[in-house]
């Protein structure tokens, strides 16, 4: 019952049915790359893509988000919270690695003494239709970070591209309920499921990068004060924020106030540990004064601190940072160097 198929020529019909019920977010091609956007028509969806430039974390943790506004009045100050739309939305076509990044962000934003209401609300209101990854890129290493090109974790429904059709698999009750609303979907045959399994195996085999992650955290901890280890990497880095801004698991933010003549608002914005200002005290003292400390922080945070506090690697192996780096700083070289230091 849960495994259906969707002929590709019926894809627009499928999307239209979704759009009749929910706002739909899907990858579209813009300026030479893909981004997730709320779509106005099924035609603009482009699923022939490896992955989006901006990770879909943006849908839950936007680049800029108003935390609250305030208005000045004679009596003083009135705080106003912009209520987030309560309606459920569908996010379609997300890759497994990016969905795993949501699970990681869930652990971070929803755990601890305080929870993040903005992130939480958006997560609750989203239905995730994932697109399994038949053709991973050479920079992908999701299998090393606990994922896989056919991982369905975190999805409500998964889509597998079978050339002329999609295998549509519901993975939980939310998925079931959604598919019940589209009764005309055909039930998948044994053959469809067999094809999907074949593709999964092929995809898995095509990922060549293997990072021995066990003990990575301990090894990095020992390397913390080893300047000779970090300097070749910090030497190359120009400390721009592109790797962390475009990382699906980076979640640091800055908070700024914006003033208008009648009031203002408090906004949070993506921030990155690569910037000087990130840690600089009001006195001018900077605990991470140079690029070396900052690049070390990024690596340590993902591969040492994350495992220690949340018992997970803070990386989903999407390879975006490798592709986006203008000086070709390759995170895989850092892993390799960690191994070599220990081996030698």
């Amino acid at each position, binding site marked *: 019952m849960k495994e259906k198929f969707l002929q590709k020529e019926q894809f627009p019909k499928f999307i239209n049915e979704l759009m009749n019920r929910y706002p739909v977010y899907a990858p579209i091609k813009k300026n030479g790359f893909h981004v997730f956007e709320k779509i106005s028509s099924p035609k603009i969806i482009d699923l022939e893509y490896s992955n989006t430039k901006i990770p879909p974390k943006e849908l839950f943790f936007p680049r800029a988000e108003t935390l609250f506004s305030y208005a000045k009045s004679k009596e*003083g*100050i009135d705080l106003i919270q912009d209520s987030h739309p309560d309606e459920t939305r569908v996010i379609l076509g997300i890759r497994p690695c990016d969905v795993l990044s949501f699970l990681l962000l869930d652990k971070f934003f929803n755990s601890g003494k305080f929870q993040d209401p903005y992130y939480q609300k958006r997560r609750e209101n989203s239905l995730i239709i994932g697109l399994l990854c038949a053709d991973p890129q050479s920079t992908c290493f999701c299998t090393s970070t606990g994922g896989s090109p056919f991982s369905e974790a975190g999805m409500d429904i998964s889509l597998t591209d079978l050339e002329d059709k999609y295998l549509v698999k519901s993975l939980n009750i939310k998925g079931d309920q959604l598919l019940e609303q589209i009764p005309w979907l055909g039930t998948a045959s044994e053959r469809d499921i067999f094809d999907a399994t074949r593709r999964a195996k092929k995809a898995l085999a095509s990922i060549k990068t293997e990072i021995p992650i066990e003990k990575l955290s301990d090894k990095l901890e020992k390397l913390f004060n080893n300047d000779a280890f970090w300097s070749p990497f910090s030497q190359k880095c120009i400390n721009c924020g592109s790797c962390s801004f475009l990382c699906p698991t980076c979640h640091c933010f800055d908070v700024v106030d914006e003033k208008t003549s009648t009031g203002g608002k408090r906004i*949070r914005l993506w921030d990155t540990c690569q910037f000087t200002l990130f840690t*600089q*005290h*009001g006195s001018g003292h900077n*605990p991470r004064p140079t690029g070396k400390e900052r690049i070390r922080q990024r690596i340590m945070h993902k591969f040492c*601190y994350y495992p220690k506090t949340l018992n997970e690697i803070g990386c989903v192996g999407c390879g975006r940072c490798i592709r986006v780096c203008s000086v070709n700083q390759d995170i895989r070289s850092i892993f390799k160097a960690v191994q070599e230091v220990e081996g030698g």
Partner: protein
Amino acid sequence: MEQKTLLRKKSNPYIPKLATITEITRENDINDLKTFKLVFNEKEHFKNFDYMPGQFAELSFFGAGECPIGIASSPTEEGYLLFTVKRVGTVSTLLHESKVGTTIGIRGPFGNGWPIEQLIGYSIVIIGGGFAFSTLRSLTKYILANRKLFKAIVVIYGARNPSELCYKQDLAEWEKSPEIHLTTTVDAGDKNWTKKVGFVPAVTKEVAPTSKDAYAIVCGPPVMIKFTIPVLTELGFANDKILLSLENRMKCGIGKCGHCSIGEKYVCTDGPVFTQEQLRFMPKEY
């Protein structure tokens, strides 16, 4: 769709509670230190603001932003909060320029605070330098209000010059009190100064508080801390009996924004109070 609703008392940790400045005390001659007395606009917010000495709050100056400030009042002082602010950045400058009656925002209390329960039954040595004495004032006040729970109380408080010593009224009271042994010192005295002249580490050595069943609690500029720790070690304080409060750049105060992280710890939620023992194993990124 983008309906705007007035805030209710929903617990959104990013939304400040409104408060009014009811009193401003100028703390030093050069006038870059002021203590603000704040009162929540809605009295019930005091109930929800359940704090302990050593915790901090994020003060909002609407239109400019927030800054984390240690709470200088003690929970035993009811009906108001005290914050001593040095004029450094944008928000603190605007606070300094504000008048009584200005509405500001408070989020908090945040951080772990001084581990009071752990301190019960011990002698307490409080060592402070400059305006970093604020949360130590809170602690001293709190201990004095619960005096019977503790053994000897030694306070060593130093500043650059007599004018830089904060909370002069409290100091005068403590000086007379038999409950507490207070030593104040300055780096350079003036013609009215009759008390000690000397740096905090040297004075600590001189006062030589006993380390038997005692905790040392240190707060001050980095250079003072650097030279005071060896003195305490010499006096026999174990590293887990030395407590320090850290400061790092901070934005959210609730362990989400990432700015104040030191290794896997966040100063805002795991700190700001750490033992010297903990710090030994943490990166020196503070």
